């Protein structure tokens, strides 16, 4: 077992390709924990950012600047009574959140955090991703049906119709990106997520800028469709709180409700990862072919550590800016500890960057590269997460028929046109 553990460390393929179940399991655990933490962080960030958009402060009481609020919420939800309505379909009601959660998390098997930082490099990666993430709607529909209540039913019907219609535009946009991967010497494209990113490196361009503006349009269509796909504002009809109280999860409370939330946020991160991998160059840092001298590599590898250093600095600044009243003593100490923790992470990352600066096959170099890849990937995904919050703060909600109209009459024709145009331009240019 130790052998299986050690032998993988030097290799530069995914555990799935190395046929190393132990490391696959480790990756799965890391990703599960990482996504869960990201969801918690996202929860805090959303409330905080949304509050600041809306001239409020957001959570401030539980922990310094409400940092512990998500944990308090999670605890509260765990301790709440588990209510299943008497008239509900008990079994389906029980299963529904799990379906959504499973669909959201299974997608991460093929998310390419780096060239070898994925559980598996599936050769049908993108198909798997689209297919599994669409299963999420099943959880919503069953939840709405099993609740045996009118509001959830309407919410579920809305959401199924919405997801099915936006999936079409989304798929066509994805196909146009996949077409671009085939513009190489051999003329064969790929469906593997990792190879799609690599194709962008080979072609020296993010697919976002390929055949300008064709790539951009396809990306924008995907970016819109993914908001609809995850039921977020302005397409949050399934849970439109002012119309359907809470939509499909009206009857859910406590842990089951939180599973829905977890699934929703996990799905948001998952679809953002697709967008990043397909159009924004995945794990690559900016200008990977231009700035590839060892000095540049070193500078870019300092970024993760510097980011955490910056966060630590902000936290320390927060400590200094806290009112000097004894009431804030514990909060101040807590924030200082948090800042120190961030600083420690920054230090570790910087040490790794310095130790592993030589591009040899040592474990440290391998580790440094891995951190680098994951950092850039997560940074790009984080931009999308911020956009999700921004949308929510800015826009009113679409009406159901308008949503369908936009999906079928605007997005579908455009994505079809972009697909055809990409094919034609690809043949002419490539």
């Amino acid at each position, binding site marked *: 077992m130790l052998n299986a553990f050690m032998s993988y460390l030097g290799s530069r393929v995914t555990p799935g390709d190395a046929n190393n179940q132990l490391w696959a399991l480790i990756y799965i655990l890391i990703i599960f924990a990482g996504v869960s933490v990201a969801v918690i962080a996202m929860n805090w960030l959303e409330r905080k950012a949304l509050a600041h958009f*809306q*001239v409020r402060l957001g959570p401030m009481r539980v922990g310094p600047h409400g940092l512990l609020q998500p944990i308090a919420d999670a605890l509260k939800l765990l301790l709440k009574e588990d209510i299943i309505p008497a008239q509900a379909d008990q079994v389906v009601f029980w299963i529904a959140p799990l379906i959504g959660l499973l669909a959201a998390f299974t997608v991460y098997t093929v998310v390419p955090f780096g060239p070898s930082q994925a559980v598996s490099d599936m050769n049908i990666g993108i198909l798997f991703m689209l297919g599994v993430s669409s299963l999420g709607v099943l959880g919503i529909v069953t939840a709405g049906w099993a609740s045996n209540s009118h509001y959830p*039913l309407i919410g579920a019907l809305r959401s199924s119709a919405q997801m099915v219609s936006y999936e079409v535009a989304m798929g066509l946009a994805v196909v146009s990106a996949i077409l671009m991967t085939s513009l190489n010497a051999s003329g064969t494209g790929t469906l593997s997520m990792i190879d799609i990113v690599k194709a962008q490196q080979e072609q020296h361009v993010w697919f976002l800028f390929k055949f300008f503006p064709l790539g951009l349009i396809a990306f924008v269509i995907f970016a819109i469709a993914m908001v609809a796909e995850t039921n977020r504002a302005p397409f949050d009809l399934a849970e*439109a709180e002012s119309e*359907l*109280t809470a939509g499909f999860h009206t009857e859910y409370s406590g842990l089951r409700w939180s599973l829905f939330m977890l699934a929703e946020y996990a799905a948001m991160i998952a679809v953002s990862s697709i967008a990043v991998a397909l159009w924004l160059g995945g794990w690559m840092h900016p200008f990977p072919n231009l700035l590839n001298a060892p000095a540049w590599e070193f500078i870019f590898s300092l970024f993760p550590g510097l980011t955490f250093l910056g966060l630590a600095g902000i936290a320390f600044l927060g400590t200094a800016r806290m009112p000097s009243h004894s009431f804030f003593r514990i909060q101040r100490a807590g924030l200082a500890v948090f800042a120190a923790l961030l600083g420690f992470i920054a230090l570790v990352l910087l040490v790794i960057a310095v130790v592993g600066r030589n591009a040899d096959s040592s474990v440290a170099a391998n580790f440094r590269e891995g951190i680098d890849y994951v950092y850039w990937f997560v940074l790009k995904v984080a931009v999308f997460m911020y956009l999700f919050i921004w949308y929510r703060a*800015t826009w009113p*909600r679409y009406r*159901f028929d308008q949503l369908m109209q936009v999906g079928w009459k605007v997005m579908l024709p455009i994505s079809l046109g972009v697909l055809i145009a990409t094919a034609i331009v690809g043949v002419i240019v490539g």
Partner: protein
Amino acid sequence: MIDPANTLSNLDLETPEKPYLDSNELIINMGPQHPATHGVLRVILKLDGEKVLGTECVIGYLHRGVEKIAENRTYAMFNPYVDRMDYVAAVSNGLGYCQAVEKLLNVEAPPRANYIRVILTELNRIASHQLWLGTHALDIGAMTPLFYTFRDREEILKIFEKYCGARLTTHAFRIGGCLYETYAGFEKDVKNFLAFFPPKIVEYEELLTGNRIWLERTKNVGVISGADAIALGVTGPVLRASGVKWDIRKAQPYANYADFDFEIPTGENGDTFDRYMVRMIEMRQSLRIIEQAVNGIPEGPIMAKVPKVIKPAVGEIYHSIEAPKGELGYFIVSDGSTQPYRVRVRPPSFVNLQALDLMVRGMLVADVVAVIGTLDIVLGEVDR
């Protein structure tokens, strides 16, 4: 005009005797506890999928018997109660009541009192419209305007608080004029607000007016024609958005509205967007009125000669004012005693709510919420 065969009494509210979630026709109870019914309104919706086949409003969850209470109070004692009807426009309620009793007593409030009344009432109109805008936008899914409007509404409430000590249920006026002289710095505060608020309206409009989703959600939604609106007794911005130029401040000027130069905005289509625009313009017009009033406020007494014990002669009176939500009328019958024999309030929210069914029939569920928001009802006033 309204087709009698299409009215609510024909709404079959019996759920069909079919087994498990028959979805051919869905009867949904929207409210009394629902995020978008602005209080405790219950709307029974009959749905075909998402389409609304009919509605029935069930009201009375907030009934406090305000009109009955009036019969057991003296005229002056009843004055604070009217603030509790439309609690977001308490000043307007008080103005209407005080003026109705003054009319009954044949008393005129002195000019300075009228100016103070106009300033506060128009400020209150802005505050009411701000609350409407925030909640209406929230119903349609735009969260952020709510917080902006509440932030700016605070400035108005601060003026109220400084003037009479209360922020919402102000009880600002008394029969015969005002009890309180303006506080030192009142005019400065009002002028500061006049300078502060116009950019804020622009800010709201930036978020909404040109927003594609907002336009799609409001244009041609909840359309009511001018004739229908008149037939249903709809007043206020809802009526004006249908193209009927009827504003009691111009039509039957009360207080000293005749002295001021302002315009009555009207819409053309009578849809939700027109009502939105009418109210947005009304806020600007209110600022105009306030500006003229605060610049022309005369010196003098603020209270007319009113007997200590108010005992109007036997008779009856109807007096109506243009409250932020429409025509607010008071019908007071006096039997010559110190207490009114009967007070009947004509609340704009209650009458406007009648138009809901006409406006949402054939629309979608999401439009019901938009229309309830655009009617700008306050349940305290509907139920009284």
